[in-house]
């Protein structure tokens, strides 16, 4: 049996509005996360909303509507781990789950395919902690075997879930995923996520030293749509650190024309990196 825990008692102070109720493609974020967990293979999804406050009832209602079990805390949980403990207590009856999927409620990118994939991978890595990773950054949900998850209760009061994961560092398996599975805390985070999710994938042709450094003649990057050449440079530098010294100096061609940083890139743009010299002669 697979259970998911969604601590959702945070106060969204930096978003300026109740972020779990922000609608993404017509569904409040919390409902979207619950649905992704269910559809991806979680048999039970336990959501812990705030104990009180103006949004508590609406968050609980949205979670229930999406099929979650809602555990309303008696007092407002001080930390995320307090909410997780509460959910674990509810799940700690027969039949206990084998796996716990743990994610905050504010991960707009979470989708059922990813959950399904993590569940599948967990069968290949019994007893291990699975962490989805995008470009070296860890995201959500993490997959904890029940035997490890229950130790949240044993953590000292002032430490969080991360400590539990760190304590089992040798049992972590990172699962590379194709989209950032990060939580969003600010309006800028959300805008950035929206632009990634609604953005475009472009191919960039590489030549000479850039091709050699990358080990291939074409690379793919995600950009907002539309983007500029400056966006492309940033994306290339972030995504392909090996190319860094080259990308910084390379000219970018858009539709077979040298393009400045302000030039616009669309989904159909033909892009190439025109690397500079690696030094040498100025003669034919």
């Amino acid at each position, binding site marked *: 049996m697979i259970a998911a825990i969604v601590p959702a008692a945070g106060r969204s102070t930096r978003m300026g509005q109740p972020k779990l109720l922000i609608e993404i493609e017509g569904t409040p974020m919390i409902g979207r996360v619950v649905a992704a967990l269910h559809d991806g293979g979680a048999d039970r999804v336990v959501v812990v909303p705030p104990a009180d406050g103006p949004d508590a009832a609406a968050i609980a209602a949205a979670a229930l509507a999406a099929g979650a079990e809602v555990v309303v805390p008696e007092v407002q949980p001080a930390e995320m781990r307090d909410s997780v403990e509460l959910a674990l207590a509810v799940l700690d009856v027969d039949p206990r789950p084998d796996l716990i999927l743990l994610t905050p409620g504010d991960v707009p990118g979470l989708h059922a395919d990813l959950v399904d994939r993590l569940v599948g991978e967990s069968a290949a890595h019994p007893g291990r902690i699975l962490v989805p990773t995008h470009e070296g950054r860890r995201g959500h949900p993490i997959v904890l075997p029940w035997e490890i998850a229950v130790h949240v209760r044993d953590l000292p009061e002032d430490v969080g879930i991360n400590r539990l994961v760190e304590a089992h560092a040798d049992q972590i398996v990172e699962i590379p995923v194709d989209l950032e599975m990060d939580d969003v805390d600010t309006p800028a985070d959300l805008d950035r996520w929206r632009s990634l999710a609604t953005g475009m994938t472009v191919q960039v042709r590489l030549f000479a*030293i850039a*091709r050699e450094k990358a080990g291939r003649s074409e690379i793919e990057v995600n950009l907002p749509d539309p983007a500029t050449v400056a966006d492309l440079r940033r994306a290339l530098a972030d995504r392909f650190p090996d190319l860094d010294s080259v990308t910084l100096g390379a000219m970018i061609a858009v539709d*077979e024309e040298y393009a400045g940083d302000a030039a616009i890139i669309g989904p159909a743009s033909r892009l*190439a990196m*025109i690397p500079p*010299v690696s030094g*040498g002669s*100025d*003669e*034919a």
Partner: protein
Amino acid sequence: MIEITESAIDHAAITDRVRSNRAGAVCTFLGTVRELTGDRRTVALSYESYPEMALRKMAELEAEARRRWPVIELAILHRIGDLDLGEVSVVVAVSCPHRGDAFDACRWIIDTLKEVVPIWKQETWEDGGTEWIHPGLAP
């Protein structure tokens, strides 16, 4: 005539091709594979292009040269792939009514080609080291 080719270039045929009864001068430039650069010895040389853009830039060079000089016929060919020492890597052939224009146009085309046409040269030195060279973009 604009071309990027992996085959050996028949530069005499190219020169012949730009001759015309209207021209009083034909100027042909050949770039060839040099063995020594300073005290470094080249053992192999390879050219790589971004062909779509290179052809486009070469066509722009032809158009601009025709705008600036009274060019009658013009040919720009670049070879890519692996070349042996002494082989012809690039040909620019220009015919004009008078020699001053033919020299000027030919020189401008080869100099500008090196700056704007995306073709890279990889040297393999005698000591086994390799180095990508794109002369136009050199600091």
